[in-house]
């Protein structure tokens, strides 16, 4: 699948609750002969090869080292190539077949479970972020002046923005889960 003709780098940001869009984009790229060789959050490296209809699927899984072989082995046996991983997101691909598109999840419960794993991780890390922000603000209010004060203020602003983004992510992922659940109801 990977030609050695040339490579191309694309920068794109996809939100975690919108990974189906990312899957569709990767498929479109493959149809034009650009096959993913490395993904790193926002930086995608593609190798040029023959255009092909390749289905990409993303899974989110926090794997213990000892479970890794088992996890990847199961996907491999089912015909999926592991292209890469970034921040617990695993990129898989397989050639499209006639009929329905291949899926890595065969029921809605497991599709929802994927987003729940992500949601729980974000929730678990939230208190840590809040405590960090609190300590930054405390030191700022304790009267750190001059350059130190400015750095602390900058840090507090950055942290606040991060927390806002964090909250948006939590809400959007929860909404996505609800949408999947609704879609599955008759």
């Amino acid at each position: 699948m990977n030609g050695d003709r040339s490579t191309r780098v694309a920068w794109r940001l996809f939100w975690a609750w919108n990974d189906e869009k990312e899957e569709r984009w990767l498929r479109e790229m493959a149809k034009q002969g650009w096959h993913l060789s490395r993904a790193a959050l926002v930086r995608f490296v593609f190798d040029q090869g023959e255009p092909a209809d390749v289905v990409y699927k993303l899974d989110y899984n926090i794997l213990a080292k000892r479970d890794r072989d088992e996890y990847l082995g199961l996907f491999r046996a089912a015909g999926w190539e592991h292209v890469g991983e970034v921040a617990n997101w695993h990129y898989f691909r397989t050639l499209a077949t006639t009929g329905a598109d291949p899926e890595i999840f065969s029921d809605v419960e497991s599709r929802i479970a994927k987003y729940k794993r992500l949601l729980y991780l974000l929730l678990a890390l939230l208190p840590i972020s809040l405590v960090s922000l609190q300590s930054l603000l405390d030191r700022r209010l304790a009267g750190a002046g001059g350059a130190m004060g400015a750095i602390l203020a900058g840090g507090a602003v950055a942290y606040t923005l991060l927390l806002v983004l964090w909250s948006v992510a939590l809400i959007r992922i929860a909404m996505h889960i609800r949408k999947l659940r609704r879609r599955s109801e008759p």
Partner: protein
Amino acid sequence: MSTLERKAERFLPLTETTFCILAALATPRHGYAVMQRVEEASRGRIRLGPGTLYGALTTLLRQDLIVRTGETEDGGERRKLYVLTELGRAVVDAEGHRLVEVVNVSRELLGIEGGLRER
């Protein structure tokens, strides 16, 4: 009703996916063998995705419904084997009985004798 049966009841009802995976693990199998066996037994109707199966195995291990029981070599790869625990066995039995009961009630209500109509 024994303690084990009472404990098993708490897991019901199972999703079709969970029920099939558990039933396939009445004998020790590796993950991919579970996929193949379920597809075969359902005559191609139920095709478990690898993400679905991996997630289910992880959950069932945590719930003590299955255990790992060594490894096997298949297709040049080492694969972990899984099998039902006593509790897992009780859960499959309980769900099996529940489903039979559902079918029996449906037959009674629909006034069907013998079997459901062929599709």
